[in-house]
C-alpha cells in the first residue's frame, strides 16, 4: 500500500486560535480515507490544508509539511495553482457555476484557466459525466443551465468538474450532507467507483457513511488526531476510549 499523502506535524492557526495541533497522518493511495470527529474538531481545516485553500485566508497560518507523492506542497517553490490541479475538491453544498451550462461547468477548470483545447472538450465532457453516472440523465440537455439540475445531480456535476481536470486526489468536504438519502446513496456508490483511480479523502459527520465508504478512518478531537487506522478496526475495536465513545454516540 503506497502512501499518497504524508502529513507531518501539521499545525493550523487562525489568528490566535490553534485549530489543528501536531497532526501526522499517512493517506494511502487509491483508498478512501474518512476524517471523522465532532463539529469544530478541525476536520475541514485539515482537508483544506491538503489543497492549500487556507492561502486565501489572510489570518490563517500553516506549519509542518504535507508531502504529495514527493513534493512538499507548502514548499516555497510549490505553486498552489498546480497543487490544486492535482488535488481536487468537492464541497458540502453543490456549487456549480450558476451562469454556466452543464457542458461548460464540466470543462470550467480548463475554460476559466484559459487552457481549453476545443477539440478535446466534447471528449472530456462525455467521459467525465459518464464517470459520475450523470451522462444518461443530461446528455440531451448539455446546453441547459446547471441550476436546472436537482441537488444530487448538481453534486455529481461538481464531482465531474473536479475529475475533468485529471487530479490524483479528491478531497470531499461532507459531500452528501445537503442531499436526500437517495442522492446520498448515489454519491457513496460513486466514491466506491472512483477509488480505483483516485485517492479520496472524505470529511463526514455521518458515522454510517464513514463505515460504508471508507477503507481507513481518522478520528479527530479538538484539533488533535486521536486515532487512525483501518475503518473496520476503528469501528469495531478502537484502541482509545474517546474513539469508542464518539462512534457509539456517547458524545459529539
Amino acid at each position: 500500500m503506497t502512501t499518497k499523502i504524508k502529513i507531518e506535524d501539521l499545525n493550523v492557526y487562525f489568528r490566535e486560535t490553534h485549530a489543528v495541533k501536531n497532526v501526522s497522518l499517512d493517506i494511502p493511495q487509491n483508498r478512501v480515507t474518512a476524517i471523522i470527529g465532532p463539529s469544530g474538531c478541525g476536520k475541514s481545516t485539515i482537508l483544506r490544508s491538503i489543497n492549500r485553500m487556507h492561502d486565501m485566508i489572510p489570518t490563517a497560518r500553516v506549519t509542518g509539511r504535507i508531502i504529495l507523492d514527493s513534493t512538499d506542497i507548502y514548499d516555497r517553490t510549490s505553486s498552489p495553482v498546480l497543487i490544486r490541479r492535482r488535488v481536487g475538491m468537492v464541497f458540502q453544498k453543490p456549487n456549480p457555476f450558476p451562469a454556466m451550462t452543464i457542458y461548460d461547468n464540466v470543462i470550467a477548470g480548463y475554460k476559466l484557466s484559459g487552457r481549453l483545447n476545443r477539440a478535446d472538450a466534447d471528449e472530456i465532457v462525455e467521459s467525465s459525466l459518464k464517470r459520475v453516472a450523470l451522462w444518461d440523465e443530461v446528455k440531451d440537455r448539455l446546453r441547459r443551465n446547471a441550476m436546472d439540475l436537482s441537488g444530487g445531480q448538481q453534486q455529481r456535476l461538481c464531482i465531474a468538474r473536479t475529475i475533468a481536470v485529471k487530479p490524483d486526489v479528491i478531497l470531499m468536504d461532507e459531500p452528501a450532507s445537503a442531499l436526500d438519502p437517495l442522492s446520498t446513496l448515489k454519491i457513496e456508490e460513486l466514491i466506491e467507483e472512483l477509488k480505483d483511480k483516485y485517492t479520496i479523502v472524505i470529511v463526514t459527520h455521518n458515522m454510517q457513511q464513514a463505515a460504508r465508504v471508507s477503507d481507513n478512518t481518522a478520528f479527530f478531537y479538538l484539533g488533535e488526531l486521536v486515532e487512525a487506522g483501518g475503518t473496520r478496526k476503528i469501528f469495531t475495536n478502537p484502541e482509545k476510549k474517546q474513539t469508542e465513545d464518539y462512534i457509539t454516540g456517547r458524545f459529539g
Partner: protein
Amino acid sequence: MNGMRVRSLKNAGMMLLMGLATFIVLTPLIMIFFHIVKMGAGSINLDFFIQIPSPPGESGGGMANGMVGSVILILMASVIGIPTGIFGALYLSEYEGNRLASVIRFCADVLSGVPSIITGLVAYTLIVVPMHGFSAIAGAVALGLIMIPIVLRTTEEQLKMVPGTLREASLALGVPFWRTTLQVTLRSGLKGIITGILLSIARVAGETAPLLFTSLGNHFWSKKITEPMAALPLQIFNFAIAPYEDWHRLAWGGALVLVVVMFGVSLTARWFNRDRSIG
C-alpha cells in the same frame, strides 16, 4: 369582537398615514416633471437637436453643441471613473481585512461627500491652471472624480454579494486567483456593477457646478478637448440667467431633455438590476 374593530381602525389609520407620506414624496417629483414638460415641450423641435444656439435677439437655434459636449464629457469621465472605481472595488473586496483597504474605503466615502463645486476647484487647480486655459479635459477630470466613489462603492457591494463558495469552486479547480477574480467574481456581479455605472452616469450628467470653471461652456461647436466645451447643464444655467426670452425657452427645452435622459438612464439601470440572482 371589539378588539377586532380597534385593530381594523388602527390599520386604516396607518394606511392613511402611509398613503399621505407617499403622496408627499411623489408630489414635488410630479410637479417638477409636469412644469418642465409644460415649459420645455414648445422648444423641442428638430432644430433644437441639430442647431447651436442663435445669437441674442434672433429666435430659433438649438442646443446640439451642449448635448454632444455632455456626451463627450461623460465618455471621458467614464474612462477615468469606471476603471478606477472597479479596480478599487476589486481591491477592497478581494483583499479584505487589509489595513490599506479600510483607508481607501474611508477616502472613497469622504470623496463622495465632497461638494461637487470643490471637485471642480480641484480640477481647476490640477488642469486648468497648468494648461493655462479652460478645457473639456478639466471638466472630464472633475466629473470622473465624482464618478469614482459611486462606482467603487456600488461595485464593492456587488462583489461582496458573490458567494465565497463560487470563488472556492474556481480556485479548487486550479484556476489562478486573478482569473478567478475576473471571470468568476467580477462576472457574477456584472449586472449590479452595470447598474452602479449607469447611476453614476445619471448623477454626473446633471452636474453643473464642477464644470463652471473647468469646461466653462462654449456657444459654438468645440473642436478640441483642450478647449472649452459646451455641456447641457452649463448651457441651461447660462441661458436661464441671461436676459433673453429666446434663451429662456432654450433653457427649458434643455431641462426637459436632461430630465428625460436621466429618467431613461435610471430606468435602464433598474431594468439591468431587475433580476438580482447571481449570473
